[in-house]
Structure formats: C-alpha cells, structure tokens
C-alpha cells in the first residue's frame, strides 16, 4: 500500500524508514516562522535558559501584525525583536517594509517543496500550496524549537479533496474554499492533512492555491497540500537557489476520505457572522448594507486579487457609505501594483491604499470597526470581535465580490458587474 504526502514527509524528517498514522514522531523542521509574536517567544526562550538559538539560519521572522507600530507597546515589542535577531545572528528577519508572513515566506524562498515548515500562526498551512508540510504551532513550541531544533508531531490521516468542473463566471478560489468549508464545517478536517487536487486546482494560479491552503486551517486541518507542478516550480524559480526534492502521495496511497466536488454550478459565496463555516450563496444575503470593505490579508492580498478588484472598479466610484481599504500582502505586491497602474485605478474609485501588513484583520489597528458596523472582507476569519469590536459584524468573500459590493454599499452579486 502506498503512502500519502504527510506520511512520507514526516518519515523523512524524523529519519524513520516508515511510520504509521497516529504515531508520534520527533522531527526537525527546515524553517520555523514567527512574526510580531517573536518578542513573547524570545521571553519564553530565555526562560528555558539557553543563550543561543541552535539553528539561526532556520529561523524566519517577518514583522507584519501591527506595522508600523500603532502604540508604544507595539513599538517596544518590535524593538525587542530587532535586538533579539541582532544578538542571535538571525538573518531571515524581514522588517516592516516586507509584508504579511504567509506571503513573505514563499516570496523569500522559505517554503520549498518537500520541506517541513512550522510557524506560530494558524495560517501557516498556506505553504502547502508549494508542496511543503506546513503547520501552525504555539509560542512555547517555537521557543523550544529555537532551543532544541526539534518538536513532536502526530502523523495525520489525509483527506483528499478533488475539485472538478468549469469555474463559472464570478467565482474565484475564495468562493470555492468557502463553499467547501461551509460544506464540511469548522471541524470538518480536524487534525487531518487536506490534499487538494483535480482539474480546477491544476488549472488554478499559485495564488489561488495559496488561498485554498490558507483557509484549510478554517476547517481544522493540520496542513493543506497541493502537489507541486510546473506552475509552482516556476513561481519559486526566481526566489531560491536551494535544491529541493518534491514529495507527493503515491498513486495507491490510502486516504481517510476522498471528497469530490463539481463546482460548475457554484455561485459566489459569503461566510456570514460569526463563524467561517456559516457560508451562504450570495443570493441569500444580497442587499446587506456594509460600512467597510477590505481587500487584502494573507488570504487575498496578492497581485491577482488587486487586479480583479481594480478591473471591477475601473472608471467607477465606490458608494459614499463605504470605506474601502486595500492592503497589499507584501511590498513585492505593492511595487507590482504600482507598476501596473492598479493603485491609480483603485484610488480614483475612492479606495484607501494601506501599507503591506495584517492591518485590521486581527483587530489591532488601521481600520477597526465601531459597534453596529458591518465589514465585508477578503480575510479568512469573521469571529465575533475579530476586527476589534464584538458588536460589529464581519462577512467574508472574494476580492471580486468585495469590490463589487463597495460600489453599491451592500453585499452584491459580482456577476452584475462583469461583462
């Protein structure tokens, strides 16, 4: 019987010939990511009582969660991190002019096929889009890896999700993953590895695959995974000189479940307050008034997302009742959006362009909500209080739906704006 990607890579990284599902193995990750929480982690690291991190070259730290610092506390937090990376000789440090961690790590070549990447952030699953085994862990665990280079992981079962059919007009990778989460539920893939496959995934851009893997976390998955192909290899080619070996599931691998979706009839999807699996077709919530629209975050702040939005908004003005905030996921995306004239279009339509970073996604700064307000966002989470106010509501949708809705000041079927 063949093995899944997850089984193969954990065997490889634990140095074992073969391992079985449910087994607990000790592994050495190739890269370990932390962001603004690196300050708290450095405190825990010092509690362990080790002076030097064991593998400085494997540590990656982008600052993104509250950049530039909104308050003295955040500023101090960043200062502690800058001093720590200096002191420890950590080269892969990306200051506030780089971008959101889950965009930055792939861009800087830290998420190669066949590698094991762990991060103190739940959406670390994003890197599975490149064929890495990438999972979220906690802060103490990162501190412990800094000290020992090792950690325990349980070998997960794998759910294979086949996505077939023709993508209908107005439907994007975000709609597809929202639909799947709505169908399987917030714990539909709890503890499991999720392998996305099928024609739709093969045809999808690398950015779209990142959106799928990013949101796999929202159904409880340990990792998301897409088998590397020409497209992802090409994407990485200019970003790394390191050698890597692709690891993929055997043709006769045993999956816990195989789920087939045909998305040919799908309409744009919306995740309604206050859970990500509360997903409805747009026709059910059309007309819901919105106060703020947000395009960005690690889920949908890539160049193609901004392009789709600017195409929809081109030559038009957003509603007077809406603030449209645009957060490019990284400085690379920012630069490209400038070059391509995307920002000009967005600004002419009334958008506010922000610096790369998480922005108000986690309710820290730069556009938090007031009681009673409604935000339509391209982010991955709509929990109560997520955007800083528990009496506000957050709906999630694709960048296209968010752009279209900002024109009308209410949740809108994007197909009405497409030729």
């Amino acid at each position: 019987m063949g093995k899944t990607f997850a089984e193969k890579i954990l065997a490889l990284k634990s140095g074992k010939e073969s391992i079985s599902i449910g087994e607990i193995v000790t592994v050495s990750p190739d890269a370990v990511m932390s962001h603004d929480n690196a300050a708290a982690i450095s405190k825990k690291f010092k509690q362990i009582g080790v002076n030097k991190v064991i593998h400085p070259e494997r540590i990656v730290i982008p600052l993104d969660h509250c950049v530039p610092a909104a308050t003295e506390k955040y500023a101090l937090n960043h200062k502690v991190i800058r001093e720590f990376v200096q002191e420890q000789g950590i080269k892969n440090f990306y200051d506030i002019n780089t971008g959101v961690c889950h965009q930055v790590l792939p861009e800087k070549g830290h998420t190669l096929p066949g590698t094991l990447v762990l991060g103190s952030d739940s959406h670390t699953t994003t890197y599975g889009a490149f064929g890495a085994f990438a999972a979220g862990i906690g802060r103490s665990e990162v501190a412990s890896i800094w000290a020992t280079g090792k950690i325990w992981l349980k070998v997960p079962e794998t759910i294979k999700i086949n996505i077939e059919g023709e993508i209908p007009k107005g439907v994007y990778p975000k709609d597809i993953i929202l639909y799947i989460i709505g169908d399987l539920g917030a714990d539909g893939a709890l503890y499991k590895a999720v392998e996305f496959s099928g024609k739709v995934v093969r045809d999808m851009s690398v950015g779209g695959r990142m959106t799928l893997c990013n949101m796999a976390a929202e159904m409880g998955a340990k990792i998301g995974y897409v088998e590397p192909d020409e497209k992802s290899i090409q994407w990485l080619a200019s970003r790394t000189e390191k050698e890597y070996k692709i690891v993929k599931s055997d043709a006769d691998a045993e999956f816990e479940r195989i789920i087939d979706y045909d998305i040919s009839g799908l309409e744009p999807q919306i995740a309604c307050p206050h859970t990500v699996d509360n997903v409805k077709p747009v026709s059910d919530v059309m007309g819901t008034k919105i106060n703020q629209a947000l395009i960005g975050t690690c889920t949908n702040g890539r160049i193609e997302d901004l392009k789709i939005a600017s195409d929809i908004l081109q030559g038009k003005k957003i509603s007077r009742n809406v603030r449209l905030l645009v957060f490019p996921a990284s400085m690379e995306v920012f630069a490209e959006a400038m070059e391509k004239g995307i920002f000009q279009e967005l600004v002419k339509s009334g958008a506010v362009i922000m610096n790369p970073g998480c922005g108000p996604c986690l309710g820290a700064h730069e556009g938090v909500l007031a009681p009673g307000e409604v935000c339509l966002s391209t982010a991955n989470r709509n929990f109560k209080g997520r955007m800083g106010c528990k009496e506000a509501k957050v709906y999630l949708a694709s960048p296209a739906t968010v752009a279209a809705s900002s024109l009308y000041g209410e949740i809108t079927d994007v197909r009405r704006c497409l030729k």
Partner: protein
Amino acid sequence: MIIKGKVWKYGDNVNTDVIFPGKYTYTITEPEEMAKHALEDLDSNFTKEVKKGDVIVAGRNFGCGSSREQAATCLKYAGVGAIVAKSFARIFFRNSINQGLLVIQCKEAVENISSDEIITIDFEKGKLSCKKGIFNFPPLSESVLGILNDGGLIPHTRRILGIK
C-alpha cells in the same frame, strides 16, 4: 491529579477570539492580566465568578481559530482546572498541554454534564464523575503526558536539555 469544580458549559466551536480577543494579543503580556479577559466576548460573567479548579465543558472543536497561546494561558491563570470537550482544535490542544492545562476529550461525558453542577475528574485513572454517572476517557500518549508532568513545555525542554 484530582480536579473538583463547578462546570461552565458552552457549545461547539468556541474560538480563540472569544477566549482571548486579538486586540489584546500584543498589548497584554502578563498571564495574570490575560486571565482578566478570559472568555470576554463569550461570557461576561466568567471572570467575575470563576473559582480555582472550575471546569469548562464544551462541544466540538474547542479553541478553534488562531494559534495564540494566550487562549490556553488566560484560562489556566483564571483558575480553570481542566477543559472537557467533545473535541479540541489541534493547536489549542497542543498549547494547553504546553501550558500544563488539562484537556480531556470525552463526548459522552459532555452530553451528560449540565452547567453549574460540581464534577470530579481523576486524570490518572481517566475517570470523570458527574451527577449522571461516571465516564471513562482514554489516557494521553506518553510523550504528551511527559510534558504535562513537567508542568508544561518550557520546564520540559529545560529538563531535556539538562538545565537546572
């Protein structure tokens, strides 16, 4: 380890944002301070009335969402003796163990426990007693127990590295 306490019962998918709001993740750094905001956006009575050793009993996927460890830390420092749930989100489960907070997965028990009753948990024996009877839960794997017994991952790592 024997835990005896009053039950705080909640539903499915209690997420980390309602356990410990994101807006505090970088502004509050001391565990005692974190405890004052535990479950703030879910149950405003919790921090006012919780007593040391009380037990949270919840449905499926407890702790889903963010990887923030403070979600486990704030509950521990609020005095929570254990969490019993139908299932746990995986990072929350790890974080709890790493903070030395007992987590017990037992669907049957959850279905039979009511809010406010006093329950007793014998962690080593894997037994939970409540008004409706006694329920057994499976022991944790050895490597995980090792971390709990050392009082969490940081002390555990110290022990592994031979640091006194």
